[in-house]
């Protein structure tokens, strides 16, 4: 059975229809064609599909699309402002914090959530924040460096 679903993604209102069995990531990718969010494990363990749902970091593979009816979602597509990459995206490039790139959208959402929650995170808090994002390429060190740089700049009142 199909259900009407209205939701706001990165400030844009969408109206769509989907079966109750559609997960939030299926809704984002297959209905709204926002394919930046990736599906890895499909059981909430790898973090590739992380998005913010009403300000809370969630695995969009273990949320039903119908559960997001009326919700406010932030995805990787909301990071850049047009052609201008966000502070985190620029830092990831600078520090080579990605290789294959599959984990990156989820990794960036976890980093964004950390910065939203914590003004000046410790290295341990950064590691803790991405502990549920699996990356098989980088070894994580460069990712922590990238997030560290943005967090430092923010706490000094520098970059946005």
């Amino acid at each position, binding site marked *: *059975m199909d*259900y009407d679903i209205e939701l706001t993604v990165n400030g844009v209102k969408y109206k769509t229809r989907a*079966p*109750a*069995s559609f*997960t939030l990531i299926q809704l984002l990718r297959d209905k709204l064609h926002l394919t930046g969010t990736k599906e890895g494990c*499909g*059981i*909430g*363990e790898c*973090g590739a599909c*992380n998005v913010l749902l009403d300000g*809370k*970091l*969630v*695995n969009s*593979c*273990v*949320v*039903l699309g*119908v*559960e997001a009816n009326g919700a406010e979602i932030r995805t990787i597509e909301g990071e850049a402002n047009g052609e201008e990459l966000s502070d985190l995206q620029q830092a990831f490039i600078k520090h080579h914090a990605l290789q294959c790139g599959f984990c990156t959208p989820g990794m960036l959402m*976890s980093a964004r959530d950390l910065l939203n929650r914590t003004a000046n995170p410790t290295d341990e808090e950064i590691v*803790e*924040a991405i*502990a*549920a994002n699996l990356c098989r390429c980088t070894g994580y060190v460069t990712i922590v460096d990238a997030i560290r740089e943005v967090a430092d700049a923010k706490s000094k009142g520098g970059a946005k």
Partner: protein
Amino acid sequence: MNFAYEKPTTTKALSGLLEQAGSGAALLAGGTDLLGQLRGRLLEPQLVIDLKGIEELSLIEHHEDGSASFGATVVANRIIDDKRFHGPMAALPIACSRSATFTIRNRATIVGNIANASPCADSVPPLCVLGAEVELRAGDEVRRLALPAFIRGVRATVRKKNEYVAAVHVPAQAKGTRTFFRKHQRVRGHDLALANAALLHDPEGKRLRVAIGSCSPAPVLVNLDDMFDAPDAEEAARRCMKAILPISDVRASVEYRIDMTGVLVRRLLSDLQA
């Protein structure tokens, strides 16, 4: 997967849906466990009932006498962030913080953790030693059961098809009571318990209790009150190792789980001295 979805806003509407759908209904709180079961086709309900529309089920209440209750849709991170749980009930938020990942804990509920009745549920041993009760409702009928009486075995509870778990009630703890939690897992990050255990020390009632999870079909509660005045870690470990009935599986063998239970109990008793 082909099911209908309902999100009632009152407990009355919820009971009506459960009466109607019977065994064809699945209750959805956080969904972190249910979605896996649905996607793996371990469960094929006709109707999924989302509990998040009912405000009453989302409440955490701390009562004047020191007791507390939380509803069916209270997520693990809310328990961790609630400072009032960090006194005598500290084993509960600590167990929550050692459970799954931050992301999952934003969705996963404690009631879901209990009602799924997975033997390795991390919130169960603390709630057992704290004497928590599960409130089951069907329409206007309410019954309260001690947690060990609610869980019957692996993924089995005494919940009837027309019932739902409305809340968990944690009684007030006697003055000076302390609780501790320990978990043994393969890796430091998010991993299921090979064995987990909680300890309660109540100096007023001279109660010393240990609950062990992941080592039997249902949680095992061990009463060590008789050694309250002179706790003997070796004897406590021996009794707990005897009380469990673990299985060998992909995570650990029977022998290893029994040994690790002994280690956890000895460490819990040393936590008490610290």
